[in-house]
């Protein structure tokens, strides 16, 4: 069945981490971010736009992302997000934390 396609199904903070991860390879606009997450998780995680955009604005306000308007691959004006150095650092910290957490959960569940 996989995880629900709504952002609500994601653990709190997970969406932020996914966004940061997505942007670690370069600047992307909002639609590309959503698509990238959907594709990478084989559709298991579908990001609802109603959650994604507030998350992007929030991350930008916090100074983890910066945005710039540019022209997209289809010659349309689009807003591109990229990681700031603080965003990069946060991503690394969150990844490490997530790995520790998930391995703990895995070992707990696996030991039953």
């Amino acid at each position, binding site marked *: 069945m996989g995880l629900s396609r709504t952002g609500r199904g994601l653990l709190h903070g997970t969406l932020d981490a996914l966004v940061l991860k997505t942007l670690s390879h370069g600047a992307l606009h909002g639609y590309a971010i959503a698509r990238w997450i959907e594709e990478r998780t084989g559709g298991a995680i579908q990001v609802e736009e*109603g959650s994604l*955009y507030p998350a992007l604005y929030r991350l*930008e306000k916090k100074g983890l992302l910066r945005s710039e308007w540019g022209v997209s691959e289809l010659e349309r004006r689009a807003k591109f997000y990229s990681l700031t150095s603080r965003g990069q650092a946060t991503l690394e910290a969150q990844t490490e934390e997530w790995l520790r957490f998930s391995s703990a959960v895995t070992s707990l569940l696996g030991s039953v």
Partner: protein
Amino acid sequence: MERRVVRPPVEREVDDEFSFHVEMRVRELTARGWHEDDARAEAIRRFGDMERVKADCRELGARRDTRMSRRLWWDETRQDFGYAVRQLRRSPGFAALTIVTLGIAIGANTAVFSVVNGVLLRPLPYPEAERLAVLWTRYLPPSGFDIPKFQLSGPEFLDYQETSRAFESLGVYVNGSRALTGEGSDAERIRVALQSAGVLTTLGVRPMFGRAFTPQEDVPGGPAVTILGYDVWANRFGGDPGIIGTSILMNGVSTEVVGVMPEGFSYPEGTRAWLPLGLDRTTAGGRGGHGYYAVGRLAPGMTMGDVRAELDVVRQRWAQEFEHNEAHFLWAQDLHSEIVADAPARLLLLMSAVGLVLLVACANVANLLLARGERRQGEVAVRTTLGAGRGRITRQLATESFVLAAAAAAVGLVLALAGTRGLIALDPEALPRLGEVGLDANVLLFTTGATLLTALLFGVAPAYLAGRRAAASAASSTHRTVGGRRTGALRRLLVTGEVAMSLVVVILAGLVVRSFSALTSADPGLDTDDLLTFSLTLPPAAYPDADLVPAAYETLLERVRAVPGVVGATAASALPFGGLSQWDFQLDDRPPRQEGDLAWNAGITHVATDYFETLGIPIVEGRGLTTRDGRGEALVAVVSRSMAARFWPDQNVIGKRFGYQMADDETGESYVPWITIVGVVPDPVTSSVAREPYPHVYVPEAQGGISTYGVPRSLSVAVRAGTSVASVTPAVRRAVAEFDRDLPLYQVTTMEAVVSRSLSGPRITANLLGAFATVTLVLAVVGIYGVISYSVAGRTREIGVRVALGAERHAITRMILGEGARPVALGIAVGLACAFAATRLIEAVPSRPDGSSILYGVQPADPLTFSLLPLGLLALGIVASWIPALRATRIAPTEALREE
């Protein structure tokens, strides 16, 4: 990343971003075979409540923008700051001159403010100190002969205490001194206060150890108990808390220590131990015996106005109840005003003067910055070309001003700290409460405020003008307009202001210095050279018979006179500048005093032999006092000139008689032992030469009791040294120790030091104002010089042309001098008017009941000060513009023309 596009405002940003997303999703879905309408519906559906999401994003976006613009501002400020520091480093001479100029001005302001803060602004160290007040008696007969301020009599205090509702509690005390002996330490005499149990309650202070006096101890003949001050306890008794309950020797009497006061407590100031007073109706004495100080705490909700109203009622009641009392009444003053005395007037004057110094410094630095701004037009033009707007240029230059001001503030704080410490160390008694002066949050706040204000004052106009020029030069191609008309006018205005303000400071300083020199050159009424003075008390424990005290002093004086190098020695209940005891007397040659007559009152000094001879006081009429005027002989006195003039105008006073009320030992009946006047001397100075002379009488200590007050046991000794005081002091100490080794000398000093200390308030004011005046003068001269030489430099070409066209040298000089003299003369005119107004203000500062005023022996509109100083300033102004003028005449035409 792709080409950049300008960010739209946040409302449109969200719309654009979302519609782009929808388009992309539609494109994706139609590519997967969706119908376009369905695809669009799906794309929008995925946003959920799109309007709510948009609203959320807009709000987050708006907050992001504020954050970003704030961060941008900080970044720019940091940039400006770094740029400013680099620029200033590039011109270290300018930076140093500016920082030192402003540093001195800010430092002086901080120093004076820290004194104002410590003396005037900080509350007294008692809980709810604003509710504390002191009481005084005033004597104001219709004849107009006013004695504005003296202590209460015992009955006056007790009467008032019984009826007062305005005061929650009242305390009463008298000052005294006690010898501490024993305990293996040297004998030491300390100031004590004998006080009612109410004093500590009123002040709201409790002992640190032990307890306050109980009402049972505060009775006549009560137990010998004492509360020690912190420093006596710490220094003499080793800070041992176990001292409570033990006994120490005070004046040879075993006295139990019941308490130790906390550190810093010393009320009245200088007191080091406290004893119970035991004042009640049986010990209060007569209504004429004024010796008691009173302090009270206002009842909750009561004001000084209530106290005054209550005291008015008391005054009327007393006038009815007691004969001859009509002109005696009590008045009250809040404790803070009492303690700071005339300090507010002095400090107000100093604060105003030092404020002007800061303004002059600002004007000078503004001038420097204007000149610098003109030299930097090239740099500014480059930055403008690179896209810096007018606001940005102004802001950058303003940052430079703040950097300068901040550096100056740092210099100023160090100077202020060192300055106030030095000042206090030099003369801790120059002002009341000086011990409480220091850096605190108030002072730092003041310095910060002064610094910001300074930066605004000197930095804003130049920065604004530079910004304007930047805008103008961006518009026109020619940017070389050295000394533009606007800048030139501004600089001349600055010079005018600078000169005006300097003149005010210089005139104020002139008046104060003149009155100080009048004070120092005023006749102290005695020969102050080579006079050693100290005080002694013969305590009742060792000298039980009061009648033998005068003889004991004579024996001691004989020993002192025998010391090699001593040319004379005497003793008296008070030496000149040593304070005043005033007694009411009776007159023999006229009917009893009527209501409204002059007060029959004079200062009195009990003197040992050789008093006038040793102090060098001339006898102007009759004779002095001799060893023949002893016990059992006819009672005699020498009086002062104003005593003679006031009570026997146009008469020969020799042979006239006066006397004090005395009570017969056996019958208790009162009588007056008449004293015959045998000589007249000049009026003594009792505290300061600024005081009006007051009638005074001298009676021989050796003749014993002449009034109910008995014979004083504490005398001040004066020793005249043949060569120097220092050379005889050790031998004199030995002579006293040989007489009685338990007799501590106290207040050991020289008459010169005593006279000098009586002038410490005026001296500190004169010195500081003198220093401020010097600083402003230097700044003003530098300012004038700077403006004129800058203007000459800017006109090199014009002058060169004039010379080439045959202008005479002196014509050029006159032109330049005229240019300098105009703003200076205008400044002097404005300054004269302001200074005149300022002296009016000094006059308007209410003179206190004790009659001290800032100016002495000089008129507020002193013609000499008001003519010489402006002329001097004008001369300085001419000299300051003469040097650049001279330089202008040396300009060779060819050189000048080649310059461009």
